[in-house]
């Protein structure tokens, strides 16, 4: 059984078909890449997995359990974490608080216990602080721990966002263009973090990325979307030699198209 099975998922917005019968499987412990041209439906697919969109048909199973119909917060509790494409951090909170919020589903104390701050709640805060500090060390963001994230640079915010998702101790991590808008140095750092997350923390990762070099090098399996359809699924080598994928990215090499554009 695969960790995540996406089976014939279709998504409509009014009359627009955003996803049409998309199928793929993500195995436990792999880095899985979702690629495709702009507007192909990659982010929509992630939104279906994390529960922000409700597909009109199909099924998404996580560890064999159906996800569709569950609200987003219950999916997070099952161990699915997400870093967004456009940074969606809590701007007025510090880095530490953002990461502590990532621990939300792993913590128990309620409103009364928190307000009174007695034994158990205080102990729990300290315990989870330890887990968060581990992630802070891991992502090398010790120096900015107490800074409000709104004041940080773009690259660092992206890193904090990955950290917040990681704080959830996820089994499946959805990364939506974690390297978008970064310079090559920052990209290298992020690629290293992704590999480390995968190897040291035993997290299965679904990655959306436009940098083909990164995708081909990092991922074990790739699914290619184009206009909401899954046009290719396989290992990086298979994808690179798939004629439909080449066509979607580079266009058709036919005389009539050349003729019509002239």
């Amino acid at each position: 059984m695969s960790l995540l099975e996406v089976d014939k998922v279709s998504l409509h917005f009014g009359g627009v078909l955003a996803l049409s019968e998309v199928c793929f499987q993500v195995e436990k412990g792999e880095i899985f890449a979702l690629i495709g041209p702009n507007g192909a439906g990659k982010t929509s697919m992630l939104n279906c997995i994390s529960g922000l969109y409700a597909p009109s048909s199909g099924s998404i199973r996580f560890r064999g359990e159906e996800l569709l119909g569950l609200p987003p917060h219950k999916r997070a509790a099952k161990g699915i974490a997400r870093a967004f494409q456009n940074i969606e951090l809590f701007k007025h909170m510090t880095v530490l608080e953002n990461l502590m919020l990532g621990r939300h589903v792993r913590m128990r104390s309620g409103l009364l216990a928190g307000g009174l701050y007695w034994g158990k709640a205080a102990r729990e805060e300290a315990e989870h602080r330890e887990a968060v500090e581990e992630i802070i060390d891991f992502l090398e963001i010790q120096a900015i721990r107490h800074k409000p994230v709104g004041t940080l640079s773009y690259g660092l915010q992206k890193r904090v966002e990955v950290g917040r998702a990681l704080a959830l101790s996820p089994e499946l991590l959805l990364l939506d263009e974690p390297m978008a808008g970064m310079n090559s140095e920052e990209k290298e750092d992020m690629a290293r973090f992704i590999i480390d997350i995968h190897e040291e923390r035993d997290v299965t990762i679904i990655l959306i990325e436009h940098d083909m070099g990164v995708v081909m090098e990092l991922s074990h399996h790739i699914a290619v979307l184009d206009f909401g359809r899954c046009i290719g699924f396989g290992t990086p080598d298979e994808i690179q030699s798939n004629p439909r994928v080449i066509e979607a990215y580079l266009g058709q090499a036919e005389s009539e198209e050349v003729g019509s554009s002239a």
Partner: protein
Amino acid sequence: MRSPFVSECGEFCTSYRADMALYKIPRIRYRVYGVLFLFLMLPWFVSEYATSLATLCAIASIGAIGLNILTGFTGQISIGVGAFLGVGGYTSAVLTTTWGLSFWIALPLAGLVTALVGALFGIPSLRLKGLYLAMATLAAQVIILYTINHWDGLTGGTGGMILARPTLGGFSFDSEMSYYYLTLTILVGAFIFTSNLFRTRTGRAFIAVRDRDLAAEVMGINLFRYKVLAFAISSFFVGLAGALMGHYTMVISPEHFDIGVSIEYLAMILIGGLGSVVGSIFGAVFITLLPVVLRELIDIVTVYLPQATEHFGALRQMIFGAIVIVFLIYEPEGLAKMWRNFKDSCKLWPFSY
């Protein structure tokens, strides 16, 4: 011995527990105890009139902390505070006067009933945001006031109700000083509770809902639950404030809880600082004392302009509005931010960097 006037050059905590304390640096902790001590001594050194003003400030502070939890920290605008104060006040009045319960039971019950009513009117917040939610809470204000006005059998209608000062054993809280201590104790409790709340799990979830509700949901926060919870805990404190106010003035009637009161409370947290517990207190004190100070000023001006007194009401409203606007433009983060800036500049003084 270290000089008490030298600042620390950093925080040197050796445990996460110590690093998560409300006041990490011992010197600042002592300063807080000092301020508390000053407030405890206050009624011994000032007139009864000043003590009564301080009591009013403390009651308003409790309500403002409540509203700030909802509007400042969780981002849900509410213009129904006036009515929620009324729910607290009338609950306590009915429980003590009609049913003959003790004040000490009626006070928490007033808070709980208001929390329940608040949660009920918080239910639309799942679907409504911003201005739309404001309209929904305005509806709460109108519905609750209408109910109070027309349920003569329970609330005495427009005539209002009479309340008594609380007693404990043989002691009655009749004097200004004793009631001041009562409200101060509850204010300190509310302050500590709220400060704790926002350094733990539930409070962080509230702030997350305010900053980015979408991301909060994906991080595992049940939006509906936390929004309703914010309405409930906020209304609890507002209800307490309403009950305390009722037992202080010893008479309540619907006009004490009209929309003007709601606006005043919103002004308190705006001027004090949204999302700041200590800011709520600053704002509450500011708005409570503003008419008093204006009155004094008018009295001075009346010597030269005898007709000034006639226009006091209008003048008060105008200055009130002008101050809110000035704050919105020049210091949207309110008095709390000004206080932080002041502390920061003290830390650096006499250097400018």
